[in-house]
């Protein structure tokens, strides 16, 4: 079965004022249609870059010296501006980390939804319908509000409604619950995966939290230093991680330790790990 998303050995570099930062260093990931993939990594691992790369949404100072990205057969890095736009519009959906800032602060929610849903039915009733789909209470009232008047959870639902309205083929969610309070996190997560399942959308879920990813995603890919270092079914990656970084990551989560136990941190010496990793060319893949 061919991959709907195929990232092949991509290198991405940012150049800022004479300094070149390599954000992706030969990352590869292939995702089949309908899969739910959790992409796990800490800050600087390159997972956000990888996520944005799918829609070629990187800032202007990004360069792609190596590698290719295919979305449903389209070579994303070579597409013309127009085709790229169509691709983003028709095939891709993005859910950002901070939902409130993802909404235009000067515009009422209703108007924003209306604009985002151009081409689809976007009258009042349709908008209310979209909000109801994301289980928004009092949708009529919410449509009249400005972004700064709603909570993060509500904003994220609105962004989800906007994104899922077009039933994208691939949904890229970049830590969509990180900015939310813990009690709404699971609700929002449930909502996203539920809607994605209904629409047959492939999910690429970016997170730094191995544990939560394991709960929702069928497959987990771990990123480290700009590469995917471990990739496999969730229970396997979580249950018996093989890459030392994955091991360390799993061990470091305080939620995983029993009372009185101490987190083993000696193996998470990042500097040492980075040094060892440079020598190890082979990515652990199954």
């Amino acid at each position: 079965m061919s991959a709907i998303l195929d990232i092949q050995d991509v290198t991405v570099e940012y150049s800022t004022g004479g300094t070149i930062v390599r954000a992706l260093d030969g990352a590869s990931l292939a995702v089949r249609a309908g899969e739910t993939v959790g992409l796990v990594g800490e800050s600087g691992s390159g997972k956000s870059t990888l996520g944005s790369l799918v829609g070629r949404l990187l800032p202007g100072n990004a360069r792609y010296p190596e590698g290719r990205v295919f979305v449903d057969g389209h070579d994303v890095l070579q597409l013309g501006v127009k085709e790229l736009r169509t691709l983003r519009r028709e095939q891709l959906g993005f859910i950002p980390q901070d939902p409130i800032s993802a909404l235009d602060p000067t515009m009422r929610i209703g108007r924003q939804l209306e604009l985002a849903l151009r081409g689809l039915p976007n009258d009042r009733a349709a908008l209310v319908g979209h909000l109801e789909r994301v289980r928004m209470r009092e949708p009529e009232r919410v449509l009249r509000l400005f972004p700064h008047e709603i909570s993060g959870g509500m904003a994220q639902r609105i962004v989800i409604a906007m994104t899922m309205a077009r039933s994208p083929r691939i949904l890229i969610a970049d830590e969509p619950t990180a900015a939310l309070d813990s009690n709404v996190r699971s609700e929002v997560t449930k909502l996203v995966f539920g809607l994605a399942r209904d629409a047959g959308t492939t999910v690429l879920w970016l997170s730094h939290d191995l544990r939560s990813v394991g709960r929702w995603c069928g497959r987990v890919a771990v990123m480290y230093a700009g590469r995917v270092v471990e990739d496999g079914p969730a229970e396997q990656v979580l249950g018996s991680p093989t890459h030392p970084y994955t091991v360390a990551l799993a061990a470091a989560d305080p939620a995983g330790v029993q009372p009185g136990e101490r987190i083993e941190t000696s193996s998470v010496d990042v500097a040492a790990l980075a040094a060892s990793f440079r020598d190890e060319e082979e990515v652990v893949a199954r």
Partner: protein
Amino acid sequence: MRLLHWLPGRLLSAIIVLLGASILIFAAVRSLPGDFAQIVLGPLSNEEQREQLRQSFGFDRSLPEQYLLWLGNAARGDFGLSLASQQPVLDELASRLPVTALLAGMAMLVTIAIGIPLGVYAGTHASTGRGSAAARIVSTIGISFPEFVLGCLVVFLFSRFDLGLSVGAFTSPTTDFGRGVVSLLLPALVLSVFCVAATARTTRDAVIGVLVEPHIAASVARGEPKGFIIRHHVLRNALIPVLTLTATITAYLLGGAVIVERVFNVPGIGSYLVLALDRRDYTVIQAGVLLATAVFVIASLLIDVLTGLVDPRVSVAKKGRGA
């Protein structure tokens, strides 16, 4: 509704600013060097005549008394008589106001019509394009051209060579609006150069600032076309700092009018004020400067209200003005 929450406080602070300004103006005018009566009556006058003049203008009273009297009368629209023309100051200013207002208005129009599109272009093309760099250089040169240099240059060119517009004749817009506009064309253009440049710069920065905001990234990610994003999201958001700049520009236009009116011999408030200052026409200076500050205070109040309408987040706490 939201407006009602902060408008009273904002109004109060506007009034405080105006009162403060009036005290400052009064104090400044009273501390101008030279004996007022001696200046007005000339060296050939005698002390008796001077004393009489001082009395007729209430200068024999205590300063606080004079100030309160002035303020009280001013509140009723009575700014006294001009020492030079013996006419009510208000009439004198009112007859010159249309000229300055038209001049400033034309300059403002040019500013908005050129400055904002230029800034939007430069901002949206900031990451690419030579056009942006050119726009940037043009706007930097623009803010570096003092209007008295530019004005003199224009007067020189237009009086030396026959370039179609007269710099010698002035037609008041109150007698013939069309010809008034034509005779204010050059002064307004000269006056607007700085403002166009400043507006372009601010708009550019604002646009760049908006472009890096996540909601624009979200729009891009949704595959919205460029023009659509600019129209619906960038302009509206970028308008906020541009609006605050407009208050500064208003003040600038009022100040710049002083010089431009002088250079082009436009009989407006600005050139009149300088003349009044030269001959210590106290009542005119007081009223004129107060008028200028009042225009600025009212303009910034209006602009704050406008900003409040554009930006729902605005509150009384936020009152920074960009430069």
